């Protein structure tokens, strides 16, 4: 592996993982359900990217199938969440409508 590829790959890993971190923060922060879902969707995208980079890095093309699979299924979970939000009775924020625990 040449220097430029090495750099690019390392940059890619770092950048994607940093992106993952940011998206994850949004996932935790919410505040609405939709925000979390958007973040999760983006995490799926970033994961697809990570798989791509790792495919280049490891030279094992078999990993590409995982990327396809991920692209397929991430769509489903986003849709399912979207529907979840849609069917919720009242509010835009999940903090009230959720069946969480109270302390």
């Amino acid at each position, binding site marked *: 592996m040449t220097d430029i590829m090495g750099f690019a790959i390392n940059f890619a890993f770092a950048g994607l993982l940093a992106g993952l971190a940011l998206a994850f923060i949004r996932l935790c922060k919410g505040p609405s359900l939709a925000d979390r879902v958007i973040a999760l969707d983006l995490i799926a995208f970033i994961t697809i990217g990570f798989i791509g980079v790792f495919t280049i*890095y490891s030279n094992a093309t078999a*990993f590409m199938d995982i990327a396809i699979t991920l692209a397929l299924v991430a769509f489903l979970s986003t849709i399912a969440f979207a529907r979840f939000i849609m069917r919720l009775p009242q509010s835009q924020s999940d903090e009230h409508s959720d*069946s969480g625990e109270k302390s």
Partner: protein
Amino acid sequence: MEFLWCLVVGLMTACGVFLMLERHIVRFLFGMILVSNAINLAIFVAGRLTRGNPPLIASDALLPAAGYANPLPQALILTAIVIGFGLLLFTLLLAYRAIKGLGTADMDKMQHAETEQ
């Protein structure tokens, strides 16, 4: 590198176990998902880790490339994942039924079975 993942397995298990002890039945389920993920990971780690060399044989070869990853734990985890999926799916719907039928998600309030009739 196994050490790192040993640590992760332990921490994930700890989180999972903690959740499994909570009163909300759905949280128990989440704990179970965590623990079962952690255990799959544990099997994976126990079979030793190999970076970037999947146990596949190229179409012109009879053996996988040297230093290939241990395929057996992978097969075991596949089985365990699928079995775990079945169990979790059932548990999820049982939780649903319990919440709907018993009117509470609190596992400690589910006291219908052991009160003397």
